[in-house]
């Protein structure tokens, strides 16, 4: 019973947090489209709205590829100037976010290619500071356990290829569907599945070595 109570408590905290972190909401989809249409018909302020809305998510995504803020800025500038120039030929889109991500990714990867930098992708480099927690009841999971779980995940992510890390990021952070990820990364849906499968397998293989640790951790779980 206590456990159930705690879970429901978590729900509340999570829902509050999810508003802060997510830059786009399903409810915004229609809104997005209206702005997109206005932009396509030549309204510059609509483009600025799109810029305002997607600056942080796109920058965040770009940051996973490169730690060079100026390069990402250049890519963003390139993207939005191109959007404006091509506004008459840009088609209506199912998802403005996916369109922007895909275009941005292409621009950025080309820039990296020009600089002859390797395609890389980092996940989990931004770790909430001491004040920022995951947002659930600390009584449920100890600080040490959280650290160890995170350590496991980080180590397993290390073992993955950049492409696999990108898919993990798109799936769990951006909350994209397989089809969306496939379209964004210009892969087939089946090869996206395969990449996820391999990524998960990497995790599993890594974890089998630390199973004992987990067992120990389980026993140390605090229960009220």
């Amino acid at each position, binding site marked *: 019973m206590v456990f159930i109570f705690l*879970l429901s408590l978590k729900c509340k905290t999570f829902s509050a947090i999810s508003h802060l*972190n997510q830059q786009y909401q399903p409810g915004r989809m229609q809104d997005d489209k209206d702005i997109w249409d206005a932009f396509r018909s030549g309204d510059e302020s609509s483009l600025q709205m799109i810029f305002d809305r997607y600056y942080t998510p796109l*920058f965040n995504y770009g940051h996973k590829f490169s730690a060079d803020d100026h390069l990402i800025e250049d890519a963003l500038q390139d993207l939005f*100037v191109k959007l404006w120039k091509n506004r008459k030929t840009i088609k209506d889109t199912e998802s403005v976010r996916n369109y922007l991500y895909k275009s941005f990714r292409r621009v950025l990867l080309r820039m990296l290619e020009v600089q002859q930098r390797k395609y890389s992708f980092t996940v989990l480099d931004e770790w909430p500071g001491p004040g920022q927690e995951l947002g659930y009841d600390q009584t449920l999971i100890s600080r040490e356990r959280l650290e160890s779980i995170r350590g496991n995940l980080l180590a397993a992510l290390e073992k993955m290829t950049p492409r696999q890390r990108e898919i993990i990021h798109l799936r769990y952070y951006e*909350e994209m569907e397989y089809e969306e990820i496939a379209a964004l990364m210009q892969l087939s849906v089946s090869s996206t599945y395969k990449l996820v499968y391999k990524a*998960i397998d990497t995790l599993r293989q890594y974890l089998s070595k630390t199973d004992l640790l987990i067992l120990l951790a389980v026993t140390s779980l605090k229960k009220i």
Partner: protein
Amino acid sequence: MEHQHQDYTQYTTTTFFNDEQFIHHILKWDDAAIAYWEQLSGQYPDKRAAMEEARTWILLLNRQPAYHPGTDKSQLWKKIANHIAVDEHRQQHYYKPLKLVAKWTAAAAAVLLFMIAVREMATHGEKSFSTTFGKHEQVILPDESVVTLNGNSAIHYARSWKTDKPREIWLNGEAYFEVKHVAIKNRLQQSDSFQVHVSDLSLMVLGTKFNVRNRRSITEISLLEGSLRIEKNGAGAFVKILRPGDAFMYDSSKQLLTAMERKAPANKAWTANELDLDGYTLQEILDVLEDNYGYQITLATPALAQKRLTGTVPAANANDILFVIRKVFNLKISQQANHLTISQN
């Protein structure tokens, strides 16, 4: 959300982590899903740790704080807006006028092209020349061969002579040909030949000079230089090769080719505005007057028809000839418009 009941006994952290429904209940809030997983957690106490870990992973990944760069957002927009403004300016002042110019140029070019095409089409195909009664005309063909047309005669030919096809020309009436020799020595090709279609005959030549006269179902071919082959296809087909000086006469009503009494040079005398009367009967002279000068002649004294005469008379116009025959044969010629009645004086 409908839950497919899985066998969770084999589930580990990774399987939970990768389970769509499990991810869903953590990321998307829906009471039924949460209730389901709570119930499951009670059902499989040994899986609680794995679930917990998978949940933590998902949350760790999902709750990563967005990266905040050291660069300035509004500064970046200013740069973008600047670029856009410059681009707009260029569009207004360069590309749009340029586009307009290009559009008009294209339109003008299209009209011009259309006009040229129409002209080409109009002039494409056959080219023809014809002369009226009593007039001569020289025509220079595309290969620089020269055709001299006697009065009341016509030729036509395809405007463009392709180098791989024989040169072809169609004749009605009388013409003297000076055909340019285009064949490379010792290497004769079909394309080098020059063909004259007259009546139902084809005259095949290379470089030659010859006269062709086609009047009243009779075709006379007189070769002055080179060689010439007469071909008749279809019924009564024949081939005859002429030597210089030869003159042959073909009657298309009888399909009969016979050697002519008159010699070849005499048959081209008209080109020098003369009429070589050797071998002409009076009737034949009158035929020439009808054919070339457009008279209608009635010979009131039929006995005169077969009378002959030798010598060359000037033939710059019909009156020259009429004068000569009147004097020589002592004729009376009465004229009404272009109708002549000839009788013995």
